[in-house]
């Protein structure tokens, strides 16, 4: 990846961010701009989480059409939100506060992933595919359970639940943003240490071991880091489901490389560009009549198909 591409996308992010914060704000520094800065911070942290977790996850499972959503992390989040609504109702949810809900959902996702990794990755002979299979089955089981809970809640509570099940940057608050930022920072510091070993893992498990990578340990470490990123992003901006697929694959197409020192920074920037653009469109053009997830799926899906048709090569 050339320096030109990277500087190009960084400039694009800055321009978009300035437009997002200042367009039509009347330079109101008391309310409008601080609120927009909160959303922008949510987009930045959420984008970095989604991009890093998706790209690293695709490396670990050696598959370009999966995201960590398949492990059932988001299903745990949704079930927890549905349970909260059933037990506490909308008033109780409001009383609980966004900050506490953020911490509790993150904590639950981490417990879930810890239990699953401990169960399936601790014995040496078990592999990543078994983890994926169990994750997929648990996603469905939890999803069904959530549907069952949905039937028990009132229509008003259901509309609250539906809002929580979409990706949205409006939930971000200074308190949750701070927790999220610290968590992402810690993940980046720890993950950076073995960044080059991730490249070797692209060659497959056996080749990686032959080249001196302690594969079981690295898989455990990076799966844990991914769980933290997903817990943070899901609690912060809601489930992103398969948005990560587009972000990762668009990144591979732009970098024409799978080396993580290229894909991880560019992927984060790409995710932020996509999220800011989608949020701008939702706010300005559609006036909140559609959601970020729907917009991103539509536009990125079309772009991705175009890439596939036009560039007929493996990336």
């Amino acid at each position: 990846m050339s320096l030109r591409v990277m500087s190009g996308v960084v400039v694009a992010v800055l321009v978009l961010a300035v437009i997002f914060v200042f367009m039509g704000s009347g330079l109101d520094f008391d309310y409008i701009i601080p609120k927009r800065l909160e959303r922008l911070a949510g987009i930045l942290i959420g984008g970095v989480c989604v991009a890093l977790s998706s790209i690293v996850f695709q490396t670990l499972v050696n598959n370009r059409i999966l995201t960590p959503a398949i492990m059932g992390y988001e299903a745990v989040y949704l079930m927890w939100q549905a349970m909260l609504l059933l037990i506490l109702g909308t008033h109780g949810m409001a009383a609980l506060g966004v900050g506490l809900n953020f911490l509790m959902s993150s904590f639950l996702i981490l417990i879930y992933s810890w239990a699953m990794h401990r169960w399936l990755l601790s014995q040496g002979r078990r592999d990543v595919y078994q983890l994926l299979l169990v994750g997929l089955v648990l996603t469905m089981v939890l999803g069904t359970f959530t549907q069952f809970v949905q039937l028990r809640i009132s229509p008003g509570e259901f509309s609250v639940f539906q809002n929580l099940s979409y990706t949205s940057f409006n939930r971000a608050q200074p308190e949750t943003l701070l927790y999220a930022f610290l968590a992402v920072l810690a993940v980046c510091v720890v993950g950076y240490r073995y960044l080059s070993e991730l490249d070797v893992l692209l060659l497959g498990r056996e080749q990686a071991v032959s080249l001196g990578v302690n594969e079981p340990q690295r898989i455990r470490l990076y799966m844990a880091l991914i769980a933290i990123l997903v817990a943070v992003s899901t609690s912060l901006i809601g489930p992103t489901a398969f948005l990560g697929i587009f972000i990762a694959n668009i990144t591979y197409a732009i970098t024409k490389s799978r080396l993580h020192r290229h894909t991880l920074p560019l992927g984060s920037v790409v995710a932020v560009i996509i999220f800011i653009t989608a949020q701008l469109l939702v706010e300005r053009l559609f006036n909140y009549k559609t959601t970020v997830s729907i917009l991103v799926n539509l536009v990125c899906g079309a772009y991705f198909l175009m890439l596939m048709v036009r560039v007929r090569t493996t990336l």
Partner: protein
Amino acid sequence: MISVENLCKEYADKTVLASANAAFPVGCITSLIGPNGAGKSTLLMMMAGLIKPVSGSVFFDGVPVGDIPVADYARKVATLRQSPGFNLRLKVHELVAFGRFPYSKGALSAHDRQVIDDSIAFLSLEHLRNAFIDELSGGQRQMAFLAMTIAQQTPVLLLDEPLNNLDMKHAVQIMQALRRLCDEQGRTVILVIHDINFAANYSDHIVALKSGAIHFNGPVYDAVTETLLSDLYELDFEIINSKRGRVCDYFTPVLENENEVDG
């Protein structure tokens, strides 16, 4: 240098390898031969540290391999698995650069670059240096992977069926390259091979396996005999000594009790 003692491997209730003992001569090509399911690849993968034995140990310079950290072992023993499935867009020289990972940890030095160039030149792959791996033919791809393994600069190379799916020309090129690795650089090459004629003409040492046990372990001259091979493969063999070497003919078995079959 590398040896195995009482090595056993079982999958569920099936014993794949039972109490294998062998020492592999240094600076030689050793071929692991035998019928399918004899335990050849299992033995090689345990030596590579990719499969854990149920009991017994692999020793490198007298140290049990389980006691050597993975990162250190990668500077002693390089492994190439059969026909790696590949969906990555990498250039040949980028793939070969991965061979330097045990030393460089991703940041290539001038010396690393020199070794990469030498490995590519060793296999005469200069013209493919900037080609993408997924656009190469099977034979060229295998050569590129071999170049990566050579760039790892380990005293021992383990190759699992390196001639799989290759045409005759590429197969000969690979075997000649392995011969030169031993003769010119003194490396030890251990490979699993199915073509008995390549094994007979290129290796120094043969380890034959049958039903999970070591059937024969000795120099190639003693291994390539009609009795031993017939017994090993349960096929009728004829060894023909030609000017260029020995040819094992097993293609048209002579049925000993043909009359009885007819009757």
